[in-house]
């Protein structure tokens, strides 16, 4: 018996000895019938509780291990280009000479980096005004059945698989761009137009949330001052929702930056520095998609592709960080 249990035994004995309420009869309880060992053991409920908490914590742990191993695996392969194959990291970031099978002096990803950022920024730039307009329409102008219908169609748009967008791009956007601007039809413009449609619902639904979070009193006060609806929207609603609109745009950009197949099908896949919007180009994701199967594990061309994947991973972390930063600031 441990010291603690002895103490407890003493307390119980004392309590029973001092039992002074006469109408309460304690039958069969005397100092020696108290099972101290049982009193100090966890109850059935406690055991259940531990089991449940442990089980669910295990699931969380699994997700944690998963994200760490994703970063670890992709990181170690992506960094091999710089440590094992001795590629200069500045050369990788700023050179446009991409021909990894020719040796470590030909691993320059600048063309793909620029193209990736170009399609992302352009798509967000086009999508934002439309998203804000639709969100205003759904929150400020109409809020009944029409808004609900538009909302559910938007949700449907999020659910359409990206290859379907890619296929639509191939059959509709590519010929259209070819007819209007000439060239092959493949290029940044085509990819941008496809990405615009893909990020539109993402930005819209988050912007709707942003507008809904603006308190009604602000709108009413503005209206009471004699402001028109547009003045209220421009000076009050948009201003109050600014931070969350920024978040919405960044989420949209993250989606555009990481989109692989739809872009790969429409951009032409030529690793060239884009000099106009309708010439074939390649993004980080499109290059990964089309080339990963053509390289041998562990060789320089393969490691170079893993470096592109690492870059994608880092950008995804950056987008996350930006969202947090904006959240903290506001």
């Amino acid at each position, binding site marked *: 018996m441990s010291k603690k249990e002895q103490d407890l035994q003493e307390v119980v004995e004392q309590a029973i000895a001092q039992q002074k309420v006469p109408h309460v009869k304690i039958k069969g309880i005397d100092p020696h019938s108290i099972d101290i060992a049982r009193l100090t053991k966890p109850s059935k409920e406690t055991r259940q509780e531990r089991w449940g908490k442990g089980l669910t914590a295990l699931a969380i742990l699994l997700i944690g291990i998963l994200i760490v191993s994703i970063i670890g695996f992709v990181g170690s392969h992506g960094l091999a280009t710089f440590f094992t194959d001795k590629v200069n990291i500045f050369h990788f970031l700023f050179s446009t000479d991409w021909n990894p099978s020719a040796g470590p002096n030909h691993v320059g990803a600048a063309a793909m980096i620029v193209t990736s950022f170009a399609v992302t920024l352009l798509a967000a730039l086009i999508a934002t005004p439309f998203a804000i307009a639709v969100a205003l329409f759904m929150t400020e102008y109409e809020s009944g059945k029409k808004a609900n219908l538009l909302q559910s169609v938007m949700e449907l748009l999020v659910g359409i698989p990206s290859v379907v967008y890619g296929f639509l791009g191939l059959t509709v956007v590519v010929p259209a761009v070819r007819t209007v601007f000439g060239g092959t039809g493949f290029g940044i413009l085509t990819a941008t137009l496809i990405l615009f449609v893909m990020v539109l619902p993402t930005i819209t639904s988050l912007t709707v949330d942003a507008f809904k979070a603006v308190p009604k009193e602000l709108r009413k006060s503005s209206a009471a001052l004699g402001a028109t609806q547009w003045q209220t929207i421009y000076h009050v609603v948009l201003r109050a929702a600014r931070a969350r609109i920024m978040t919405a745009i960044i989420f949209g950009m993250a989606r555009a930056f990481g989109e692989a197949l739809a872009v790969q099908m429409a951009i032409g896949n030529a690793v060239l520095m884009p000099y106009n919007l309708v010439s074939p180009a390649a993004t980080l994701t499109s290059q990964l998609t089309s080339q990963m199967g053509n390289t041998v594990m562990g060789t320089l061309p393969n490691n170079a592709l893993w470096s592109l994947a690492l870059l994608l991973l880092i950008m995804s972390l950056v987008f*996350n960080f930006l969202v947090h930063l904006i959240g903290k600031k506001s």
Partner: protein
Amino acid sequence: MNSKRNDRIATGVIYLLVGIVILLLVGIIGNILISGVPHLSWHFLTSASSSFEAGGGIRDQLFNSLYLLILTLLISLPIALGAAIYLAEYAKDNWVTQLIRTTIEILSSLPSIVVGLFGYLLFVVQFGLGFSIIAGALALTFFNLPILTSNIEEAIKGVPQTQREAGWALGLSNWKTIRGIVLPAALPGIITGIILSAGRVFGEAAALIYTAGQSGSTVDYSNWNMFSPTSFLNVMRPAETLAVHIWKVNTEGIIPDVTVVSAATSALLVIVVIIFNFGARALGNWLYNRLTAAKIK
């Protein structure tokens, strides 16, 4: 009256932009359905795909998509359910929880191609599984986990606190309360969440190209032995899904009827997504009405 004029202009511009978006939405969905549905025939759904001739179907791809979906849900549901219960019921508001939430956010915003490549690295290469259904299902699990977890967490958080307090008042442990009271009450929401995530999984291709592979092996639908290489249930065989099929025939395929095959497959995918989207809500509402006394309009 400058401000009145501006108001009218702004309203006009907003309605114009909304009109363009509506036209775009109708155009996109209409285009997919109109160009694809006429080619959706029983023959198309039930015949094997062809690698160089016209007239191939999508039987194997359709089965593979469904099989992968089921396997993915089987693997990801227990993990997501556990994680969601922990986050909704047990997690204290401290930096550890904050870190976990950030981790899940990061996982959900990772590009699916990166998730696919990680699956390729770990399962296909490291564990030597080769291009296989099981590698694909695991990659899809990673892709599915964050969204499923947050969907389920939302559903669990929607259960009123008084229900839990009632459980505690009966002397039940927290865990018993969760299992016996909270989860049944959250079931409609959980099922809606599962179906919505299933829609995403069904159309995913980027995570599968380098895990489940881009080719199908010959499968025999009468062979029920899971360990036989020709069995349709074998999890070690490479499998091309519907979404991967669209990508494959458009980028590397040589069949002459590419457009027909992809249009029909796209239409099928979109129809499935529509069914999942609306079905999820309908089923959720129906279950809610069946299982609880409350009515929602």
